């Protein structure tokens, strides 16, 4: 029963965001917007984590998605949010389908490190590309949303925000369905014991491949939406510290529910932003201590608070 409720709660929350977004001050809207973008990326990380894989290089797809979206305008004159997201999906799906052939053979720390190396190679390539602004990156401007002109209007930010909310909701719902499917349920089994999964007749390699591509596409979608929301992209998105933040949010959230990544991302952004404001000299320390507290006292992530509470009730 609880699974239906999870989807329902999420839908209700997103409808509330969609309606409430009109009344939010812009700074709050931006924070939520970025949290949702992060949440979408971490949603994909969560799928990988359920499969027993932690990528220290998901910045690769986050960045690739952002660049796939951002380069549409300078190279093809297209500045439509919808097309930007689709372009990110296409590029990250193609790239990850190829790289998964290699990465699906790796586990544990080796998977993490090879992912890291690949994302750092993209970082290096982008830093060397002065046509794309090298390490400074370039600004991404949005003109239309599925053909409707929003660029330069008063509601531009709100329209982008609404798009992010809707896309995040679609991603979460699809992921929810996927996790209930047969292949989706294989993830946990692979994490527990691959050999048994193989003996059962399921293909570990194929499942990991599919899950990897899904998580990469989600990271790309998050990157494209972040590009539209922030209005600027740079190679830093592929740097290992960006990937580290995704892992951080993933652990903070826990893998309990598709709603967890969004909650985790929102809390992460809030902590970070508050720490920036109130202790500009020790915001890293604040993040570090938060992380330790979560790992020590909430090993299942923030989401475990909810399940615990539900069990108690």
């Amino acid at each position, binding site marked *: 029963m609880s699974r239906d409720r999870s989807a329902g709660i999420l839908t209700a929350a997103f409808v509330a965001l969609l309606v409430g977004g009109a009344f939010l001050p812009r700074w709050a809207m931006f924070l939520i917007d970025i949290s949702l973008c992060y949440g979408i990326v971490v949603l994909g990380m969560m799928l990988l984590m359920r499969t027993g894989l932690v990528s220290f290089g998901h910045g690769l797809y986050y960045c690739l998605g952002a660049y796939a979206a951002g380069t549409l305008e300078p190279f093809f004159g297209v500045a439509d949010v919808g097309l930007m997201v689709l372009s990110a999906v296409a590029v990250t799906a193609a790239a990850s389908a190829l790289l998964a052939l290699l990465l699906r053979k790796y586990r544990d720390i080796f998977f993490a490190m090879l992912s890291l190396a690949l994302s750092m190679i993209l970082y290096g390539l982008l830093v060397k590309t002065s046509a794309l602004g090298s390490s400074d990156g370039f600004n991404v*401007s949005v003109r239309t949303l599925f053909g409707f002109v929003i660029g330069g209007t008063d509601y531009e930010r709100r329209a982008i925000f609404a798009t992010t909310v809707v896309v995040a909701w679609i991603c979460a719902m699809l992921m929810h369905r996927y996790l209930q499917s047969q292949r989706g349920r294989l993830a946990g089994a692979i994490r527990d014991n691959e050999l048994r999964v193989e003996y059962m007749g399921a293909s570990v390699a194929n499942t990991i491949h599919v899950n990897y591509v899904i998580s990469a596409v989600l990271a790309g979608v998050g990157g494209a939406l972040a590009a539209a929301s922030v209005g600027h992209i740079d190679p830093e998105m592929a740097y290992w510290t960006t990937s580290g933040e995704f892992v951080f949010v993933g652990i903070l959230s826990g893998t309990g529910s598709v709603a967890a990544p969004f909650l985790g991302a929102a809390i992460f952004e809030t902590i970070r932003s508050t720490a920036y404001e109130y202790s500009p000299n020790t915001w890293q320390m604040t993040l570090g201590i938060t992380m330790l507290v979560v790992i020590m006292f909430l090993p299942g992530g923030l989401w475990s608070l909810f399940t615990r509470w539900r069990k108690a009730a």
Partner: protein
Amino acid sequence: MQRRRLLSGAALAFAVLAALSAAQSQAQDKPIRIGLVTFLSGPASGPFGVPAKVAAEAIVESLNAGRAPAPYNSKGFAGTPLEMVIIDEAGGATKQVAEYRNLVQRQEVDFVIGYISSGDCLAIAPVAEELKKLTVLFDCGTPRIFEEGAYRYVFRTRAHATMDAVGGALYLLEQMPALKTYAGINQNYAWGQDSWNDWTAVLSVLRPEARALTSQMPKFGAGQYGAEISALSQSGAEVIHSSLWGGDLEAFMLQAVPRQLFKNKRLVLIAGEPNLHRLVGNIPDGTIVGARGPHGVFAPETPLNAWLREIYKAATGLDPNYPAYSVAQAFLGLKAAYEKARLDKIRNAIPMGAAKGVKEEMEKAYAAPAAEEVAAALEGLTFEGPSGKVMMRLGKGHQAVQGTAYGTTRTVGGQVLVENVRHYPVERVQPPEGVTSVDWIKGGMKPGKW
């Protein structure tokens, strides 16, 4: 005619007096909040971010006390005191955009002065435009900001980086007119790459005979330069160009000097000035250094310069380096624009004698100028900075231009002196409006009309 002019002159004088007295009485009302964004952590904090912050704090204190020399001797901005909200610039463009929105909408600052990293400047400019918040970029260098975009609320009160390469090359060729070969070591990110690209482009125009032998591009923060030093050494180049800064520059010098890299090679440090006092004993005599403008040791002997040196020295015990001059230019430019906007408002108010709504009109005239009004005043403004005249002449009046200067180091008695200083006027080192830096360099750097 005469009488009318006299009358309007009197009216103006009266208005100014009224404005000043109103300003005095209003002075303690609500301070003007300025958001200052500068590196407080990370590698750029030591040489750039923190000196800028310290300078900003000293400047605000001195301005609030009305102790700055004329024409900046009114308290605060037109009598209203200033207060600052300081934010760390570290963390990349996404975080900076979020923090900028917080600064403007949650902290409700009136103006933003900030940004050292060019990437952050590029990212912030459209957001400033969206939020209609007057934002003064104080230290980033890339010409792309106003060559690729046009903004109403965004200004940069320091000249862009093109002049660093042009001035350095002009100086070098005066010293070594028969230059045949050169090499470079620059960090592998936008600043280092642009710096080297500009440098080779300028030299290929000014001295086509000279060849680039090797371009070393260690990554930012590399720390170890052993192989690079060998490669530079074996290249046999006469001159080494470098835009290294901060800790990377120091590490390079510490490793290169004992290895006698500079025995028969001349070093050009585009951004070496902030490190000079620290490199005593680790910098060869004859090194050509710049301060990315006529700042620091290159600044003229003016009351304004003496003021900045005095308040900075009181705070740190050191002489101000170029980021301190950059931030001073931002504050003084904004102050000049703010006060001009205020006077313009009063001047343009409905003349006395108009019977209806005098009170309302006067109140409106004496209200604090809006961002649009200050922006209009700053556009195309020429103001005095501690390093001389600053003209807002590029990017439709939003981008400052200034001449630049270079000199040669000599270590005497535990101090690095800069000698043979040469100043280069604006027209020799900056492209005129409407021409991009790249095109101007390729086109032979023809002096524009200023």
